[in-house]
């Protein structure tokens, strides 16, 4: 057992952070929030050149075969520097979905271009009900001629405006999980996109499929066999958003510590007041617990384990604790950080968005409750204990 990252991983994280912290100024980040695409294409290309876009793909697709933990460390660094990028849409969602479920032709078409930073791709899964359960999917994918027709409304589609294609989940039969994935080109007739405005700067879209038609080879994986892949996608997203939240928390704590050491009130640095010290210790406590849970989630998914329990724990914890941390950071800063030009606000907004993504805390606690009902044994730690003899 080893609950630390190794030297290579540490180096990766440090490199990623150093790059991310220099990639964009806070002013430029704020400016990007008002643009349609929400990210800086040049920066994304630089990230691709550093190997991050393809990090988790096998070498044959231009990747470096790294694990999900490595991707989590990159995402943590991006979160810590508040750098927007299409890494979720293109890598975490579409890229790994195509790697999991795509045909050889699809993989060869998309993955190398994604790795090179040439292709933006995304997925369209959630619908107006807002939940992540398969039963909420009402979009229909019906056979039509030599291909399929897609009808339905999707929300929270990341980077749809920049993507060349959207992998859309739809219902292809009557069973609850009779669901299928098809790739819809962004310019397909019958596809309408509308930008949503959301805290945190991610570029989220509504996508209305109104008799959008695609060819037979647009299907990803087996017809009716989409759900396990989508469930895995949700887990990956949740684990990585947990890591991003840790980065958000770390940046918020860092800002708070440096402010507390220099801001003088009542003739002392405010960081010398016990109240501020207790707040900071509490922030740090939650941050370190969150970090370990997030790393564990990414590592267990990356190792091909179920990872559902670990991911739900990580996302449930980080989704509550990191936004709370940003609130405390503001409480300590006071009015200065309430201004739009102080960088703390970036993290405040990103925490709102990240806690909501891929299932909020309540969603993941409900998922854990389901696991608890199904298999109590999994809640007794890494190596299940028997109860001592007097409780058997």
């Amino acid at each position, binding site marked *: 057992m080893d609950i630390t990252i190794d030297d290579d991983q540490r180096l990766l994280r440090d490199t990623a952070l150093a790059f991310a912290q220099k990639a964009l100024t806070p002013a430029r980040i704020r400016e990007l929030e008002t643009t349609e695409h929400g990210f800086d294409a040049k920066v994304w290309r630089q990230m691709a050149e550093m190997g991050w876009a393809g990090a988790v793909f096998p070498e044959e697709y231009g990747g470096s075969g790294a694990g999900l933990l490595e991707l989590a460390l990159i995402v943590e660094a991006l979160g810590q520097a508040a750098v927007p990028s299409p890494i979720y849409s293109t890598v975490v969602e579409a890229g790994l979905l195509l790697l999991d479920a795509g045909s050889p032709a699809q993989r060869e078409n998309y993955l190398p271009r994604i790795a090179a930073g040439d292709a933006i791709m995304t997925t369209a899964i959630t619908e107006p009900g807002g939940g992540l359960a398969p039963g909420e999917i009402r979009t229909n994918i019906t056979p039509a001629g030599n291909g399929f027709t897609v009808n339905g409304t999707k929300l929270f589609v990341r980077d749809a405006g920049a993507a060349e294609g959207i992998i859309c989940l739809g219902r292809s039969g009557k069973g609850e999980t009779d669901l299928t994935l098809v790739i819809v080109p962004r310019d397909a007739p019958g596809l309408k996109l509308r930008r949503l405005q959301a805290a945190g700067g991610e570029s989220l879209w509504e996508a209305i499929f109104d008799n959008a038609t695609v060819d037979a080879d647009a299907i990803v994986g087996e017809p009716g066999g989409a759900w396990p892949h989508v469930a895995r996608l949700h887990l990956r997203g949740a684990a990585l958003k947990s890591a991003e939240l840790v980065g958000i928390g770390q940046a918020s704590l860092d800002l708070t510590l440096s402010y507390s050491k220099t801001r003088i009130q009542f003739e002392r640095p405010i960081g010398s007041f016990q109240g501020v010290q207790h707040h900071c210790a509490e922030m740090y406590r939650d941050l370190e617990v969150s970090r370990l849970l997030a790393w564990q989630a990414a590592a267990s998914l990356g190792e091909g384990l179920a990872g559902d329990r670990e991911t739900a724990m990580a996302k449930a914890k980080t989704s509550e604790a990191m936004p709370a941390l940003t609130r405390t950071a503001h409480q300590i800063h006071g009015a200065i950080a309430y201004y739009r030009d102080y960088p703390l606000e970036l993290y405040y907004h990103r925490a*709102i968005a990240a806690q909501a993504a891929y299932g909020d805390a309540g969603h993941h606690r409900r998922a854990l409750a389901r696991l608890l009902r199904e298999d109590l044994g999994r809640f007794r730690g890494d190596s299940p204990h028997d109860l001592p003899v007097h409780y058997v």
Partner: protein
Amino acid sequence: MELKLTADEAAFRTEVRDFLKRELTPEVWQAHRDLNEQGMWTPDFTKAFRRKLGAAGYIGMGWPKEYGGGGRSRVYQAIFWDEMEYHRAPGLDRSITYVPNAIMALGSAAQKADLLPKMSRGELSWFVGYSEPDAGSDLASLKTRAVEDGDHFVITGQKSFSSDAHMADYGWIATRTDPTSSKHRGLSMFIVDMTLPGVTVTKYPTLAGWTHHAVHFDQVRVPRSMMVGELHQGWKVVMGAIDFERAALSGAGLVGYQFDRLLAWCMQDREGAGRKLDDPLVQDELVRLAIEAEGARLMSYWLASLHAKGFKPQHETSLALLVKRETARRLDVAGLELLGPFAPLRTGSPWAALEGEVEVEYRDHLYFQFAAGGFDITRNVVATRGLGLPR
């Protein structure tokens, strides 16, 4: 203990509610909302509405009759504040709460005669100038100077975090008149006409959308007659006045509105996902919130009852404001969680839930945590002034 409103109080509540519904129709709401203003109404509408409050008698209704007030008990005022907050009406700010009460308690005869009638008609807008860049929680370290010069004082310095300064007719300004004394000593309070030469207002956008202001005073000549209280006794004025605002702000209308709004969301039948309200965990969360909201409501009417019975609550006012604002923050956070993926969607966005209000307030109400003492300093105040712990 009388848990219900009396018939007269209930009738008053109905009257206020009818007034607010009549004045704040959906059309008015659409026409005059402005997310870029604190309180989220345009300055013009706020000023016009404040005059209507004055004309309806609501501003002065609790003032003593000697100042042209209605002499109604604090319970009526609490009902009024409660309904104003619940209906998100503009104008429930220092211009009708803090400042007139402070002037009645501490102002000169001339100040009272000049200002109170106008204020009871809702004609004046104020900002409060205490905070400075280096004097936030530590108010007493303020540096804005007022130098005596014949019949005038010449004010130079900067006030920051000054809400609504851009629409203010007057500033309520704490200055240092004796530079040789430090901290709480040697301060004096002035009423400053914002049209005087040397006053400039600078905008700073906040993360909540609206703008804060910095006010610069460059050799602003203020007549001695506009000093409030004695020379060098400004700290007393600050301390004496500060409870007035807290009392009005501690009403539970906001909290009630937040709760009801969440209920409305939970009752919606969402396509494919059913009603949130049917989930036992959501019920439990709502119940927890309802208990906290009830606590805040009781605290606010407890405070009003104490006033109505002639007691003079002091730290209790800070406590009630803390309870109300902490409860409001709990509701903000609960809202964020209940709205799930819709939580980050902003006002004006397609699919924004509850018109994006939860997201706006989750940001906006941040200032509850640090302003007017905030959560930490208020705890210190309660511990030292209320519980007698040593400083």
